[in-house]
């Protein structure tokens, strides 16, 4: 009996299982959109504005149309449903009469070959009248700045809804300046009194530039219409149902006429949630009656993708000499680029309520500028916010001679404490991850390690930071079917990028009571899959995992009901052991899952097929916290930083698949180490990107990094499947602050602008530690 597997000890949740699509991926057989080559394929290219702001006086496409091999050349005039006042970037399919950022599509071409399409772009004549530009958000928000949006354009708050971050009250004050598209203000207590009674007031402005999500696969889509007027899109997307809705809205096609097939997604990180090139490709396919494929170049991605916003946070704090928090005043300016669509709430929550500030005044502004409009990037606005508050907390502790961990721990929120909006913090492991990292030998021995700096002239520093993510929510569905061979077929619409499908299979296995090897999970398209949310917001395992769990339990109940009838026993007396449902204590009296599966699949059978389903909606978030520690060496002459060690401690609630969890922790950390040290989209005064290549937009390579140590902490969430919390977002959050704090430890300079480039560091060192 001891070798038999009951529900409790199947190979399921908590086991490190490599994802099953590994062999396909390492042999190059997995197909991404650009790998699909249907017969009659046409290639699309977009003509993009060379100006950040210009009136389009005329467009002459006649020469391009006359080029042999060109099948269509279209401008905004050729698209009937285009809204004049585009509320989102997706709606701005082609510029109508004004271009509002460098790289905005103005005309589109479909041709037999890519080279022909490229040649056709050169033959399109556009007459522009350049207009004044607003590039710096602080200037763009002043009255009188050149306007970006047409008057009366609505703000886009769907990003905030998609991430279900947290609701905050919108400010009633009307926007005075033309380019402020969203604003909010939250206050508590009497900040002025708090500052007056403070012994230590610290004011700094933190700046993080626009950064690109950096997915290796550029945006790509393939569109084809069939003879019945149905549009099929093969898309590299983080959410096929969302892509369907957006394309439907932009082009005025009912959703039931659109099928989105989610193709393997070569990385998204938030940048492939919103529609971008799907609508224009669909239009080209409609006009030409041929399949049309569009793949962005890397230059187009960097110039005209949907990066993370530039964030500027002016932060002022007041504390007593003993470290008692008194008041906080903060102003967050989020540079949204040419279209609205950022999240204001995240910054307010973590500035004002990760630590217990008794009084605060927090203002947030979303500002439009003549730059590419932005989108989500893994924990939108959280790394930038944590860079501000965690740099600040460290500095306060140092100024007052307090232990920086004890200072944080003393003021850190507990579950139940109010967030800035008054809602209570849900159960979370913030304190546990901070305690755990403070116990790490690298932290305990930091003074000795710094003192042992070598004779190479490099200086050493150790820093840490804490950060969190509230966790996204979205209604979702799943089905679990019992196959005639006794295995399970799980169906969702979930796009698997990070390895969530194996985790979902493990959840189904544990919930039903079979090994994960007996579960196969399929990601269906929008025609066949139950409605499934975005792969975003650290919510796949938390929400889709719950749907799969419930569907598997439903399927198990159905199988047990069938077994009870077949065995003439009460379901309460049955157990599932090794793929066979038996009467407890009578192992010979049983029926295999395969038999039940077969009976549900037979001609003239009276046994119903087992089909478990669940379609939950959610209300309770499960915040995930991570703490990170960096040991760095700094060359004071060149400003070069070497990351010697990096430790990631994260509360994941329950590690459904430890391999996947570690991969998320390491990958997320490296993205924000890039944000900390090398990355930034740099625009000149005319709004033109000055570093539109991966040579000049420097992402970290293997040679820039050490092995990253991961420590998983499990503080179960009350509502998540098996106690799981979202895993994807927390690891990208603390690193820039941890590096900034380590840098301060090493050279005595508090740098407040990312990236912490060699120039900035060397200059700060040369200035005697002043940034």
């Amino acid at each position, binding site marked *: 009996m001891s070798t038999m597997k009951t529900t409790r000890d199947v190979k399921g949740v908590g086991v490190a299982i490599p994802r099953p699509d590994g062999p396909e*991926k390492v042999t190059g057989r997995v197909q991404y959109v650009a790998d699909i080559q249907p017969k009659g394929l046409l290639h699309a290219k977009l003509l993009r504005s060379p100006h950040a702001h210009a009136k389009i006086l005329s467009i002459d496409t006649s020469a391009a149309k006359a080029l042999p091999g060109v099948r269509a050349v279209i401008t905004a005039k050729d698209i009937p449903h285009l809204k004049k006042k585009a509320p989102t970037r997706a709606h701005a399919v082609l510029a109508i009469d004004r271009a509002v950022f460098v790289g905005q599509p103005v005309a589109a071409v479909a041709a037999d070959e890519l080279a022909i399409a490229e040649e056709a772009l050169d033959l399109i004549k556009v007459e522009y009248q350049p207009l004044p530009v607003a590039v710096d958000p602080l200037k763009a928000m002043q009255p009188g700045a050149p306007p970006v949006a047409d008057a009366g354009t609505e703000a886009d708050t769907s990003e905030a809804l998609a991430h279900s971050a947290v609701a905050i009250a919108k400010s009633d004050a009307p926007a005075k300046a033309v380019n402020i598209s969203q604003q909010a203000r939250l206050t508590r207590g009497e900040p002025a009194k708090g500052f007056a009674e403070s012994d230590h007031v610290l004011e700094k402005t933190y700046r993080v530039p626009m950064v690109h999500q950096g997915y290796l696969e550029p945006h790509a889509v393939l569109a084809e219409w069939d003879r019945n007027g149905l549009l099929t899109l093969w898309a590299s997307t983080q959410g096929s149902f969302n892509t369907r809705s957006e394309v439907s809205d932009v082009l005025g096609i009912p959703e039931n006429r659109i099928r989105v097939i989610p193709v393997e997604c070569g990385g998204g990180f938030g940048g492939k949630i919103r529609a971008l090139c799907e609508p224009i490709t669909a239009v080209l396919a409609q006009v030409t009656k041929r399949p049309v494929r569009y793949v962005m170049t890397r230059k187009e991605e960097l110039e005209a993708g949907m990066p993370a916003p530039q964030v500027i946070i002016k932060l002022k704090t007041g504390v007593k000499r003993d470290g008692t928090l008194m008041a906080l005043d903060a102003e967050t300016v989020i540079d949204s680029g040419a279209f609205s669509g950022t999240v204001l709430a995240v910054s307010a929550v973590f500035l004002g309520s990760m630590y217990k500030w008794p009084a605060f005044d927090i203002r947030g502004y979303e500002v439009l500028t003549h730059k590419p409009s932005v989108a989500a990037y893994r924990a939108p606005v959280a790394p930038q916010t944590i860079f501000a508050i965690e740099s600040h907390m460290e500095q306060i502790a140092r100024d007052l001679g307090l232990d920086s961990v004890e200072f944080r721990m003393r003021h850190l929120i507990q579950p139940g404490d109010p967030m800035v909006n008054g809602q209570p913090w849900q159960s979370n492991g913030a304190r546990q991850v901070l305690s755990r990292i403070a116990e790490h030998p690298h932290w305990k021995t930091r003074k000795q390690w710094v003192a042992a700096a070598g004779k190479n002239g490099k200086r050493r520093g150790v820093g840490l930071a804490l950060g969190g993510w509230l966790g996204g929510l979205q209604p979702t569905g799943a089905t679990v079917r019992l196959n005639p061979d006794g295995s399970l077929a799980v169906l969702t619409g979930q796009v698997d990028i990070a390895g969530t499908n194996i985790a979902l299979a493990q959840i189904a296995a544990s919930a039903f009571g079979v090994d994960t090897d007996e579960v196969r999970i399929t990601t269906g398209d929008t025609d066949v899959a139950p409605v499934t949310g975005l792969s975003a917001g650290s919510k796949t395992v938390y929400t889709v995992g719950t749907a799969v769990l419930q569907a598997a339990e439903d399927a198990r109940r159905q199988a047990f009901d069938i077994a009870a009838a077949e065995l003439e026993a009460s379901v309460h007396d049955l157990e599932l052991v090794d793929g066979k449902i038996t009467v407890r204590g009578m192992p010979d009296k049983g029926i295999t899952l395969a038999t039940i599966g077969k009976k549900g699949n037979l001609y003239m059978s009276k046994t119903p097929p087992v089909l478990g389903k669940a379609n939950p909606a959610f209300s309770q978030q499960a915040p995930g916290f991570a703490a990170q520690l960096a040991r760095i060496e700094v060359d004071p002459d060149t400003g070069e930083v070497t990351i010697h060690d990096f430790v990631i401690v994260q509360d994941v609630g329950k590690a459904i698949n430890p391999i996947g969890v570690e991969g998320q922790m*390491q990958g997320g950390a490296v993205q924000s180490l890039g944000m900390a040290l090398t990355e930034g989209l740099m625009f000149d005064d005319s709004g033109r990107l000055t570093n539109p290549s991966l040579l000049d937009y420097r992402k970290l390579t293997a040679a820039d990094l050490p092995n990253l140590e991961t420590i998983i902490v499990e503080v179960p969430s009350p509502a998540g499947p098996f106690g799981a919390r979202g895993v994807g977002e927390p690891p990208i959050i603390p690193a820039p602050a941890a590096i900034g704090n380590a840098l301060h430890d090493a050279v005595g300079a508090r740098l407040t602008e990312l990236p912490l480039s060699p120039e900035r560091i060397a200059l700060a060192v040369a200035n005697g530690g002043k940034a």
Partner: protein
Amino acid sequence: VARHVLRCTVNGEPVEALVQPYTTLLDALREDLGLTGPKEGCGTGDCGACSVHVDGKLVASCLMLAMQARDRKIRTIEGLGTAETLHPLQDAFVRHGVPQCGFCIPGVLMAAAALLEEHPRPTEEQIRYGIAGNLCRCTGYTKMVTAITEAAGILASKGSAR
């Protein structure tokens, strides 16, 4: 423009394709020869996703013209191993759960294979520099380095890096 006949060896087999003088080796492999394992991540040689071997040397195939590969031996990810018989590097990548989105993986594996041909027992630093021309945005590289180290040990004990 007149097309040219490209004759070369790809993954051990002689092949022929009609290519434009401006066609890159990457495009010839992907579009004309149907080998879509090599990926285009940047088109400027900065990301390494298009990495292949040309006469045993690691090359960014997006930076090489197809006609420059005339009479030469090309090896792509499709020639490294098969799903049934994975190359030890591929096998280690699967077991350690390296691939996430997977887009960079063919290029990383070709870089790693070239590294092991040159240094059958690489140090961690040699591995990190060996794949420094390959950008990965998902993994943070840690599991990659572990997998390459392990595969190197297995290959070295077999006495061959092929």
